[in-house]
């Protein structure tokens, strides 16, 4: 549990530490840290960057939720990358093929994406449950496979069409597109941001208010205690991975439905791995993940601003890496301090030597 302070302190410390580390790195490379920071923050002032950050964060948020679902029960769904790209591809094909009244087209497209994501991870889930294959290995291999499957699907022999030197699926009809919130010259925030927020709420409710969520968290915290408590481990692995894959399947949709309207060769890649980092950063907490996604997107977008002032933009990669590492360390430190404090509090209830006898080694053994 822990207080608000215990929740906010570690990420704040971690970010401060990462900033410090990057400042030192910049100094060594002969740039001015202050100038760099100024350029990064200053870029936010320009509306286009701010809108870009929110739009990218939307996708990051969804992939991170997918990763967090797995993390909660110690499943590493490395295959989010393949799931969201394949799902976006299939959704683009399905959405482009059907013309339905407005709204319905979007729903069908989203269902197609979720189903594809779930089906793709389902292969890994079945392999794990029935053959004991580590989901890490199988999902990595499925990632590689997904590239081939996508290339096949969007070839002009199948569903793709050649456009200049690019190849992609046919454009989605108007009824399958999701309008955004226009900010004039600054750009348009994807309408899918609402879907992402709804997924966040749904994730919280699922984890904290349902029997399924409880069993999921119990399986993650102690598989043995969960088994003794009647949790069916195989079923949990299967269902959790399927949900994770379905959520991952939605991650490509903000771009697809809100801006590109086609799945082409330049469809964004790499979100899957970002999602793992963001989920770590947000500690599997939906609000934390939102902040993590925004921070990550901001750092990504500030590359451009750094280039403009002549600071190597690789500094952003260093910063992202050091933030994740420091967050993990900081949370572990705070967790230990908190547990220590709690034990002391519990111990204070009945001080040694007074009242009922108590096992003397309990504190040491825990």
């Amino acid at each position: 549990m822990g207080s608000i302070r215990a929740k906010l302190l570690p990420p704040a410390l971690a970010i401060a530490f990462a900033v410090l580390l990057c400042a030192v790195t910049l100094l060594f490379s002969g740039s001015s840290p202050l100038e760099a920071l100024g350029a990064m923050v200053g870029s936010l002032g320009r509306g286009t960057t701010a809108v870009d950050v929110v739009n990218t964060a939307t996708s990051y948020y969804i992939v991170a939720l997918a990763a967090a679902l797995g993390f909660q029960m110690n499943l590493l769904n490395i295959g989010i990358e393949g799931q969201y790209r394949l799902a976006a591809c299939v959704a683009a094909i399905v959405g482009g093929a059907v013309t339905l009244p407005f709204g319905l087209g979007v729903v069908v497209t989203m269902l197609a994406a979720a189903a594809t994501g779930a089906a793709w991870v389902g292969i890994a889930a079945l392999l794990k449950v029935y053959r004991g294959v580590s989901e890490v290995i199988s999902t990595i291999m499925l990632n590689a496979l997904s590239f081939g499957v996508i290339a096949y699907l969007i070839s002009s022999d199948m569903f793709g069409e050649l456009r200049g030197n690019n190849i992609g699926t046919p454009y989605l009809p108007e009824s399958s597109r999701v309008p955004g919130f226009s900010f004039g010259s600054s750009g348009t925030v994807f309408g899918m941001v609402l879907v992402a927020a709804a997924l966040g709420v749904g994730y919280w409710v699922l984890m904290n208010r349902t029997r399924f969520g409880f069993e999921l968290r119990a399986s993650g915290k102690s598989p043995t205690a969960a088994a003794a408590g009647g949790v069916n481990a195989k079923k949990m692995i299967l269902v959790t991975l399927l949900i994770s894959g379905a959520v991952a399947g939605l991650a490509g949709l903000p771009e697809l439905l809100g801006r590109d309207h086609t799945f082409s060769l330049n469809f964004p890649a790499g979100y899957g791995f970002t999602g793992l980092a963001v989920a770590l950063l947000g500690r599997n907490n939906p609000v934390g993940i939102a902040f993590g996604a925004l921070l990550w997107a901001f750092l990504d977008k500030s590359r451009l601003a750094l280039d403009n002032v002549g600071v190597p933009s690789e500094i952003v990669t260093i910063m992202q890496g050091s933030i994740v590492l420091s967050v993990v360390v900081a949370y572990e430190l705070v967790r230990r301090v908190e547990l220590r404090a709690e034990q002391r509090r519990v111990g204070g209830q009945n001080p040694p030597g007074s009242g009922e006898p108590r096992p003397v080694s309990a504190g040491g053994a825990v």
Partner: protein
Amino acid sequence: MTSPVPEEGTGHDAGVPSDTAAVPAVRLSGITKRFPGVVANSDVHLGVRAGEVHALCGENGAGKSTLMKILYGMQQPDEGTIEVEGREVVFRSPADAIDAGVGMVHQHFMLADNLTVLENVLLGAEKLHGIGRRARARVSELARRAGLTVDLSLLVEELGVADRQRVEILKVLYRGARIVILDEPTAVLVPQEVDELFATLREMRADGYTFLFISHKLDEVRAIADAVTVIRRGTTVGTADPRTVTSRQLAEMMVGSELPSPETRVSSVTDVEVLRVEGLTLRSEGSERPLLDSIDLTVRAGEIVGIAGVEGNGQVELVEAVMGMRRAHAGTVRLSGVDLTSKGTMARREAGIGYVPEDRTRHGLLLDEPLWSNRILGFQSRRPVSSGAWLSIEGARTDTTRIVEQFDVRTPGIDVAAGALSGGNQQKLIVGRELSGDPVLLIASHPTRGVDVGAQAGIWEHIKTARANGLAVLLVSADLDELIGLSDTIKVIYGGRLVADADPRSVTPEDLGAAMTGAGEVGTDDGGTDDGGTDDGGTDRSTRGGDR
């Protein structure tokens, strides 16, 4: 585990051991060690003469292990001094202790299975004699001394438990230890191996080695030790001469005088069958060796059936098969006439089985989660903590408060993490939880293992009350006094079969101990002897039996 015996005064003076030898091999004075919330050792005094086997006795959680970790440099005392062979020393790490000639053999072996015996011994001590011929010669010589007869180039994974233990001893000898701490060395051994180990210890003692022997098996202590120091609630309560003291007197020193009794003498057994197990058979994976062999068992309403046995004889498997955590290969499990054989753990729990697991931290609790969340575990499909697919947080919190009050769980609130509670309070929480929801059968595995005397009495009381209200209880325990005191019927399990029945009204711990080793029927006459040949009431083969 304790062997609780009726209240009586201790027969021995508490005080600093008097040492007759000029310079004691080890002398601990005024050692105090505090952990957050608890004092693990307070003002401990211990003197060990050179060339003796000195036993350190105490119940689980009395502070033996902490004390030995201090002597071995794994932990630093907050107060007090350590003297080794007359010189005061400060150990910052086990390496310091080894330099001073103190070595420790842990209860759980720390060997690399895929290395040979020789490699295991040399690993980390290459500086002493290198890794060549000189080292091998030295190891062979010491191996003879430690009674290790196997080829040094064998892989450790090919060795049996007793030989692995010898390798551990060899490791500390090779590093120059003259004072060896043995942490419950007999816990993993069968009786013949114990005898062989003792023979080796006697020979090595004659060679001038000093042993600190940690145990709570009183008969073994009396068989091997030259002196016994008893530790209770973190402090030394006295020393005794094993030649003159009886096991009972030692037990009294270990547990103090405010002993509760587990006895339930008014029978409440009905003829309503609750649990009926028939022909239950479980084979180990990949082999035909049965872990459980055609177990037939009936538990009636209001009856406590105790299962006695040396750990590793199928108790864990029996409990897990009845709980549905393991699938039996043959046989049926019925609860109140309903066939549960093909049902999973959840369905069995819903049918009315409560389960107090052997290892509360691994199987009973989510340590990071608050108490109210732990109340939900195992009950997530039932009121008051859930309704259908939704949890009822309010219901869980209210009911946790009830358990905390009714079962006297000492906690500042229901929002603290379960891992912050002491073992006894964790166990009370589990017992309280498992007795919720009106179970018809309670499966209790070592329900009072590692809990303090106060919590033990409370848990016994709750089990007795539930039994009086018609609960059927399947009790597995290594504490023979607990078994004899609580049970209406005792069955002895050996090699996966129920080999004997005993009547708790007439059987003695000694008879039961003999039956548990497969010696045959439980004798009802020819009362117990105290000759050290059988396990005492405190039999506790291994605290982690059944880990997989």
